Structures are given as C-alpha cells and as structure tokens.
C-alpha cells in the first residue's frame, strides 16, 4: 500500500476574466502517491498547469482542499508556505528559470543553504553537478550554458534540498530531443531511486516515463493509466500503451 503524499478534495479554481468567471478546475478529487512518477497530460487549456500549481503549493484553490505531505495548504501562512517550498517540494520549469546572475554551482547551492550546513550543501551540489555531467560548467553562468545543461542545473537545484516531491512543468518543452532525453533519463533515474515526481507534459516520450498517467480535459481528470506493470526496459511497448490510452481520450 503506497502512502498518499498529495490529496485534493473538491478542488476548484476559477479565474475571473472581465465580468465572467472561468472554471479551470472543477471539483477535482485526486490522490498522488509516494514514489510515483505521475504524468499529467491533456488538451490545451484543460487545466493541467493550473492543477500543478495548486498541488505544488504555488497557487491557492478557489475552493476545495489540497493536502500535501499531510499539510493542509489552505491553513498555511505565506511564511509557512515559503518554508514548505524550501524543504518539502521542488519545481522544474519549462523555461529553466535559473537565477541569471549566479553561476551553475551557486544556482544549486543557494537554494540548498538553510536546509543543511553550508559544507554539506556545497558538497552535495558538487556531487549533483558531477552526477549530471556538469562539473566542467559549475562556474558558468546560465547564459553560457546550453538549454539541456541549464535544465540539468535546474534538476540539480530541485534535488539539493531533499524535496519529497519534485514537480515539473513541461521540463523538456523547450529542449531538443537529445537534451530532452538527457533530462528524462535523469528524472527516471531519480524516480527509480524512490523520488516522487509529478510532471505536466505534452510530450509522448516524456509521458512513457510515467508510472501513472492522468488525462485532463475541461478542468477534470477524465482517465488514468497505470504504467507500473510495464517494464521500463520495453519502451516501445509502453509507448504503444500510452498512445492507445491517449487516443482513447481523444488526444
């Protein structure tokens, strides 16, 4: 039996556009489990990213509850939310969002300081850079790195604080196929080591890395696919299953 790390109940998000309200998320009840590589796919404007913001503590729902790692988000102050983001969860963005005035090493270590001693954080940052093949680039600034290198730095940054859940918002969206594969390999490897990952993507290749695939449309989760039973070795088999699933949903 897996542990629930995220749970939403009757989660709604409404955006006010002019005088009319747009319901982007409609009464979503969702559970996400520890150790899963959960991928959210769906049609454009279906609410994937909005759901990701809500379940990652980045945004507050209009109604309903979000519980992450046992913490009810609606009861948390801004300060508690900051601490929560620092220690419990982490994020990988499509546009990397590295701090442009810090080096690769500093981008990683700066986020980690405060979660452990500086010595330990520095040591871990160097290990991560080494692990992701970035040792040579540690003193380089984001503008001096390729897109793939930047995203790997972003992954290192997401890992520095021992986050229990890593959220990814189309982390391969702006990368070429080779860089995208490097990033997905890194995420898969992390998940294989027990790291919980929740990722939104449009990319079929990215979706095949999931252990659980959710399909969203019109503010609701329409269907889900469990991919755990398919071996990660058989990528073509997984791809076919995912493709069939998506076609079924009208993707």
């Amino acid at each position, binding site marked *: 039996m897996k542990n629930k790390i995220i749970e939403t109940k009757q989660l709604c998000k409404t955006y006010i556009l002019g005088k009319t309200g747009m319901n982007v998320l409609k009464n979503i009840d969702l559970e996400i489990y520890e150790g899963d590589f959960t991928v959210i796919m769906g049609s454009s404007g279906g609410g994937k990213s909005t759901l990701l913001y809500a379940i990652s503590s*980045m945004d507050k729902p209009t109604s309903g509850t979000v519980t992450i790692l046992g913490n009810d988000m609606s009861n948390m102050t801004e*300060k508690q939310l*900051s601490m929560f*983001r620092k220690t419990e969860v982490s994020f990988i963005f499509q546009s990397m*969002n590295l701090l442009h*005035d810090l080096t690769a090493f500093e981008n990683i270590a*700066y986020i980690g300081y405060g979660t452990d001693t*500086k010595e330990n954080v520095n040591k871990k940052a160097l290990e991560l850079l080494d692990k992701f093949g970035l040792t040579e680039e540690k003193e380089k600034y984001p503008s001096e790195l390729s897109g793939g290198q930047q995203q790997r730095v972003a992954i290192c940054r997401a890992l520095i604080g021992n986050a229990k859940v890593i959220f990814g918002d189309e982390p391969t969206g702006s990368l070429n196929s080779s860089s995208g594969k490097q990033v997905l390999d890194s995420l898969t490897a992390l998940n294989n080591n027990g790291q919980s990952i929740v990722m939104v993507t449009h990319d079929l290749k990215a979706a095949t890395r999931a252990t659980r695939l959710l399909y969203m449309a019109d503010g609701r989760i329409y269907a889900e696919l469990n991919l755990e039973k398919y071996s990660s070795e058989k990528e073509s088999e997984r791809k076919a299953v995912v493709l069939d699933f998506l076609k079924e949903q009208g993707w």
Partner: protein
Amino acid sequence: MWIKKLKKKKLQFIVLGFILAFATMILSTCISFSKEVQRYTDSQYDDANNADLLLYATPGTSKLIQEKSQERDDITSIKTYQCYYIASLNIYHHNALVQSYINPLYAIVLFDYNDVPFKLTPVDGDLQSTCPAPGQVWVQNIVADNHDISVNDTFDIKDGTTTKPLTVSTLVNDTRKPVSMTTGAAIFINQADAEWFDSQQSLELICITTDADSQAILDWLDTVYTDEYHADSYDTLSAMKLKAIMITSLISSLGTLSAGFMLIITIVIILFFIRNTILNEYSAIGTYKSVGFTNLDIMGFYQKCYALVGIISITIGSLLGLPMSIFIGRIVMEYIGDYSLSMASIYSCIFVIVITSLILIFSIWLALMRIRKITPVDAFRVGTSSSKAKLKKSLIKNAHSSFSMAINDIFKYKSRSAIIVLIVGASFFVAIMLVNICISFGRMEKNAPAWISGPACDCFITKEDHALTQELIDYVQNSAYVDSYITGELFSKVSVLSTDDNVNIKYANVTDFNTFDYNLTGITYRHGRPPQNKEEVAIDTLTLKNTDYDIGDYITLVINGKETNLMISGIYDTMMSPSLSFVTDTFSDVPKELYYTKIGVNLKNPKDLDAFRADINEHFPDYKFETMLDFVDDIKVSIMSIMIPVTTIIIVIFFAFTLLNIINMIVMNNNEQQRNFGIMKAYGFSNGYIIRRNVFRLSLLSALGLAIAAILNQAFTRSIYYAVMTVNAYKTEVFETTILLVCGLGVIIAITILLSLPIKKISPKKLMEE
C-alpha cells in the same frame, strides 16, 4: 510601438520625468534668478539715480569739498543732508534701548525721498507722503523686520525727564542697507523734530556723484580733509551693490552648481536606464531586426519615448522655475525692492528648455547607437544578457543570508551601485554643507573668533567713552561667577593709519586686549599668532592681500598721530575688514577712554549669565552688559531670514531628487528582478528575505554615499566656504549632521521598504505561465 513601450514602463518614465523636471526647474530658477538679480540690482543701483560715494562727515565738510571740487571736472554733483550720530540720546522702542541693538544709529533729516541720490522705497505704512511728518519717523524695513518694529509703533526719545514720542509712519527699503551684513542703520525724521537730536553729534550725509573711480575720489578726499572737516565713515555705490548681491551670489552659485550637477546625474541615469532597457530587450530588438525593422526604426521607438517624456518634463520643470525664481527672489531681495520677472527670465526659460532638450536627445541618441551592434543571431543566443562581461563573480562565496547576498548584489551590479552612491553622496554633501552653513550663521555669536577674530567671552561690560575703572575690574575679579577676564576694546576708537598707501586701514576696526591668550579668548589665526607685546600687530587677510607684507615683517603705523614700527605677528580672517589687533600696551600713550573701555568675562558656568548680568546691573547700573550676540544679532537675523528658507528649499529639492532617483532605481531593480524574485519564491525564499535583501543593498549603498558625503564635507566644505565668505567660520556640527544623515538614511530605508512591498504580489506561478 513607442507608445506601447511608454505604457509598459510608465512608472519608471514618470519617475524619470520628475527627476528631469526637478533638475531643469532648479536650473531655470537659478539662471532666471541670477539674471533678474543682476538686472534688478543694476536698476536699483544705476549711476543715474545713485551717488557714487556717501560720506558721514563733520559739519562744514560738504562746503570744503564743494570748494575744492572746483579744481576737478569729474565730480558731477554733491548733495548734502543734515544728520546726527546718536550716541548718548536714549531712544526706546517697546522699552528697549534702540542703540543697544543698532550701532551706529544715524537720524537723517528727510525732505523728499524722491530727491535723495540713493533709492528709498516706502513699502509699508504711509506710502503717499514724501517725507515723515513732524512727530513721525521712517524706519528701514530690514531694521524693522529684524527688531519687530511695526508701523504705528512709537520711538520714545528720552532726554532727562522729557519724553518725545515719534510714531513709525512708514517702513522704507533703503539701497544703502540691502542686507544687515553692514552694521548700523538710519532713521529718517522731519526737519521740525531735528531739535530733539541737537544734543547728539551733528553730521553731514554727503552724496557725491562722479565720473571718476570712487577710490580715486576717496584718495583725493584724503588730501582735502582737515582735522576739523573730514568723513567719519563712507560707503561706495559699488560696495553697496556688492553687499546687496553677496547672499544672492552665494545662493545662485550654489543653486546653479547644484542644478548642473543634477542635470548631469539625470542624464547619466537616463543613459543607464536606456542601457538596461536595451539589455533587457536584446531579444526583442533582434526579433525586430529579423522581421525587417531598420536600426533607425528601432532607435526611433526608444528615442520617441525618451524624447517625449524628456521634453515634456523639461518644459514643465523650466516653467516651474519661473514662479520658483519669484519665490526665492522675493525672499532674498526683500529689502532692496519688489522682485519681479522680466523677459530675460522667459528667454532663460526657453534657453533651458532648448539646450537641455538638445543635450538629452543627443545623449539618448548616442546611447541608442548600441542598438546598431545587435544582430538577430546574437540577440537570440544571448537572451537577457548582452555580454559575458556583465556577469561578475560573487564577492562572498557561499552567500545565503539576505545581508551577504545584498553585498554580492552590490558588486555584481557595480554601475547601478555606483550611481546610487554618487547620487546619495553628492546630494547629502550639498545638504550637509547647507545645514552647517545655516548653523554657522545661526551660531555666529558662539564662533566670534572665526567670524570677527574677536574673543569668545561669555559677556562684556562697558561704559561708552569711559575707561574701565579699577573698582569694576576688582569686582569682576572677585566675583564668584567669574572664571577669567580680559580688558581692552573690541571696537577701539584709537586712530590707526598706515604710512604705506597700499595698506588701506582708514576706518579700520581696531581691537585691543591686554592679552589674546587662547585659553581666555579662543582666538587663533590661520597665519602666525595674535600680538603678544606692544611691538606687535595682527592685520586681517584682505587688508594685506595685495601687499608684500607677511608674518615677521615690520609695518609703520600712525597711532593717534605718532609713527610706530610694529612687527606683524599674525594675519587673520574677519568679516570686518579692514581690521587690526593690538595688545593694550601698544596704546599706552593714548587716552584710555579710547581703547580701554571693555572687560570681557569668561564665566565659570555660562548658565550663570543672567545671574551675573543682574549682579552687574545692580552694582554698576551705568554700565552696559553685552554678549557677543548683541554685536552680531543684526547681521545674523538678516542672514538667517534669507538663508533658512533658501537652504530649506534647496535641501528639500535635493532630498526629493535623491528620493526620486532611489525610487527609480528600486522600480528599475524590481522590474528587472521580478523573474528572479519569482524563482526565489518558488524555491522557498520568503517575501521578508527578498525585501530584506533589497533593503540591505540600498541601505548599505546609501550609508556608503552618506559616509562619502561626510568625508567630502570634511575635505572640501571649509575651503569652499572660505573662498566665498572669506572667513574660516565653517564648522561641521556633529550632532545636527548626524541627525541629518540618520534621518536621510531612515527615509531612504522607509522608501525602499515601501517600494519593495509589491514584491509580495509576485507569484511564482507567473514563471510557469511564461
């Protein structure tokens, strides 16, 4: 496109507009002000309506000059007015003896103010009459303001048991007394009341108009004078004009310098702003180029934004300079006449608009030239960073606290850090200088050694034209209040002349004391030392300026008619040039009532002043008990009435300028760092942390700016002050300066916090939406 760009950064453009408007307002004010002051003083002191030389002379001198002037053809007119030097006649106003605060005081018999060869302008009271009616007196407006004298007040002339009241019917601006820097004053009376002044020294006010140089006439007059017929004091038109514009020159020089500085800073800021805008829009510029926009098209987008904001702000600022010029002009020129603007101000306003706009447009164009170098490929590749050179290593490695990150930010963004330090440093340098100048005037009496090279005694006891008595000296010596005392006279009546024509000490202020011991008087000189024996003399700097005399040289002086060789022991600065200082022994052959009339007392506790005054008044009722304030009050009040409002205006403008620049920097920083702030929030950095990082950075830079301001003040202000005022009276008041700096830093921190609050609204969600 340019409108879109304008709207996108409207807050920053508004702030930039304000900064430009401020700078041009000051520039326009100062140019208009100096032109109008010059025009106005030229008209007030024009040769057609003003005599070139005014003499207070003994009766009959006028006739003598008239006779002798037949030998010359360059004296065009000599007009004479009956007047009195009021020494022993007691005139009271509100029960206070007028002579105690105005000395010397002259009463001039006036027939028609339009007829006098100097400008008298009635400004309050009876404005129709041409002279005071019997029983009335006209008072100089500056004197009235300084001593709370109003129209319909009464001057009571007490002669024995009889009292003659004179009603103040009119206040007049008198070009002979434009500022209180000149001691003494005059009242104007009707011929019918002149008999009340008969007991006083009768004088003639002789007004000479000449085509020759005033100094040449003065030199000629020296050959005409006799023991019986001579002038006691004189004034020249050029000297009066110089006094009239002394403060205005100081203010307009300070203001123009400030405005020039502000304008340079503003242009630097705009160029910096443009540079940053180009850096931030590098990709966009590349995109424009890739779709066919030319360099000129793209430069045009930006040029239009800045030029529009610039020209509107410059125009508004320059136009606002005109009412500001009137406002300051009316304060500064209050006692000379009605200050108003002429076409010269309109032209200067247009000049400021055109020149500053051209400078601005040219500077913007130069800054935008960088756009030419951007290629689409470079732009796409580089993204938001224009070059690698922009990125600097962190000064503090492994920084994490908001404080250490703030220090790293300071070094990473060196150019904007430098601008903040420059703005804060320069603005507060001027502010410190102005505040301390005001204080130096305001506390003139406490710094007598610097202002008039006089002793810093707590009080002086004197009896006009009477030598000090041993009884008084013994009493003072044995008083429980007294710590020490000196004897002599601050304004001695001993006649001291020079045999050297280059040393003009006629009418010099002669000071003598038994000792100038620093512990008793606080007097030190910039060059040499005060006299210590009867063979020594000290002379003021201005008197010896164009002579070959130096410390250690001997000079021949004629003291009360007797030639004496004295060694120059010191050269000192004073507001009262020409001026000489001696020890009392030098005058041993002179009647004591001329030089041995004052006792200067240092009290054990200065707080006992009133008690000591009461004690002396009780035991020596015939003696005057004075403090240094009594000697300088008239000068001080007049200067302060001009300096305080003008200084306040300049400080407020500078402070507003500083704040606007800081606001601009914060807004610019917040806009540029919005993405970074969002990223930091996404990774758990709190609003407090981010705001603190901002506040620490601005506070550290401001503190550095303030420290530089304080250092610059210590290094330069004394010299600047000395160059303008010719006295070494500038002192940095530690308490007031600290208060100014602390308040300045406090306001900057408060503004930074306030402007950083919108950081709270930045949501990390936006990063995902990009």
